[in-house]
């Protein structure tokens, strides 16, 4: 299941979609909104996605993960829109026969998603806003 949604993500529901009687491990990554960045208070984040391409890119990542690890189930759910500190922005869940594969596959999926999926976030501070990592001088400080 790949989902880009403006609605609150129910982590348990994502986990339920990967459950399998053949699985000995379910591994879940939950990304949450941090209340600070570059020493400033984050009031909220604005997430935006190029949805059709993001789904296509995530599917490619899942395909690659499926070739490298014996995935029994997998799910990726990503929030877009306005998120406050503490809210869940992304959930990746995988199930595999044994735990080592589940850790590796889950980490590969979230790391590659962050690198390739066309999804962006803007940090909104008390006195300004900034698209994350867009320009070199800001990336260097991050």
């Amino acid at each position, binding site marked *: 299941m790949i989902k880009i949604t403006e609605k609150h993500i129910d982590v348990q529901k994502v986990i339920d979609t990967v459950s399998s009687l053949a699985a000995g491990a379910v591994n879940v990554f939950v990304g949450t909104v941090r209340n600070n960045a570059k020493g400033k208070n984050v009031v909220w984040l604005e997430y935006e996605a190029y949805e059709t*391409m993001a789904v296509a890119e995530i599917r490619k990542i899942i395909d690659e993960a499926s070739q490298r690890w014996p995935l029994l189930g997998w799910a990726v759910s990503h929030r877009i829109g306005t998120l406050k500190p503490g809210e869940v922005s992304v959930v990746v869940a995988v199930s595999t026969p044994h735990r080592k594969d589940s850790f590796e596959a889950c980490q590969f999926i979230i790391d590659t998603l962050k690198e390739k999926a*066309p999804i*962006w976030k803007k940090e909104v501070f008390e006195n300004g806003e900034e698209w994350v990592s867009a320009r070199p001088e800001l*990336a260097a400080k991050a």
Partner: protein
Amino acid sequence: MKLKIKAFGVTKDYLGGKEAVIELKGQTVGDLRAELNERYPQLLGLRSLYIAVNRDYADENQMLALTDEIALIPPVSGG
């Protein structure tokens, strides 16, 4: 040819909206990049800028057609 360009993230601010129309003399992604850089020099200040054609990252020498879905992909920051 006249191409419709989708903008995301910070490129929306640079292009002045979610979509821009570019009159392109050349035919490739590289030609489009040169045209965009000339028209919107702020793009040159980005850490990276990919151009997606039909929902896939494109090479600079890829040929463009009127019906292509073209999008600007500034540095991504999902997760």
